[in-house]
């Protein structure tokens, strides 16, 4: 199947569409992790952010994947 090719192209397009420099992206990730960790036990190493275009290309949107450590969340509750 063509999923490997699609994934490769997706990575290329995501890279092309980046509106933040690598340094700004690192800073943003660090600050987001600092704020969010006040509310959730998050896995900072796995925090992933990307900026993509919305349909019709009229705006950008920030998508942040932030795994919450389930075991610690249950412990807190």
């Amino acid at each position, binding site marked *: *199947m063509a999923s490997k090719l*699609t994934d490769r*192209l997706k990575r*290329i*397009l995501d890279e092309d569409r980046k509106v933040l420099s690598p340094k700004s992206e690192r800073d943003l990730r660090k600050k987001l992790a600092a704020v969010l960790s006040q509310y959730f036990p998050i896995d900072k190493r796995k925090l992933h952010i990307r900026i993509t275009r919305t349909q*019709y290309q009229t705006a950008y949107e920030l998508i942040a994947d932030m795994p919450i450590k389930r075991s610690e969340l249950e412990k807190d509750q």
Partner: protein
Amino acid sequence: MAQIIVFTSGKGGVGKSTLVANIGTSIALHKRSVVVIDMDIGLRNLDMIIGLERRVKSNIVDLTKGLSSLEEALVYDKRTHNYLALIAASQSDLKKDVNLFKFHQVLTDLETMFDYIIIDSPAGIEEGFNKSIFFAKKAIVVVNPEISSIRDADRVLALLENHRIKKDIFLIINRYRKELSRRSYYITAPDIINLLNVPCLGVISEDERVLRQNNSGVPFVYQSSFTVTNDIKLIAEKLIDKKKSIQEKAPASKSIWEKMKNNAS
């Protein structure tokens, strides 16, 4: 008032001029008046694909320079009972020779004469491209199922984003081979639509007879036996009749596993 539509791609050789010639002819065969403008200054080809090269007396550069009149520059296609007209590109001038203000004046005159104005943009994202998209109200980005074409199309979409066209941007996937869509090296139409995130007007099948038709100067839409003719006709109908559905999103994956994978990614 005419609708101004630009066909663009970023990458060259994806079949823009072939599509402009055939979609233009198809719209004209529906008895809607349409003028196609070749903006590939210095690399004139659209006149040959339509088969009107012998009757070209003037071109878009002469027109914008005031060296010829609209009557001299417009070449009507008798096969469509003059519903299709062409304004050819100049073969000896450069893209910078088109004055944007004068080009706007030409388009304003054409708007009162035709139902549709179709602009065939040159490849690339430089001057010729910028002038071609400047006054368009609708843009159609032509893409082939290959990664370089898709990447360039994505770049063009980003440039169109900064333009007044905004929401009237559509995709046409050209030279598509459905039988290869399950091969690992082939990117499928639904994947292209998902990656570029733009509504798709249609998918045109690959057909080597298109080359023969282009060389003969008879647009292939006159050949009713070709599958591609039907693909083009459907697109032309969508352009002139908004009731026809435009594929907004790729069809849903067949298996639950694929659906889960798509949601996760």
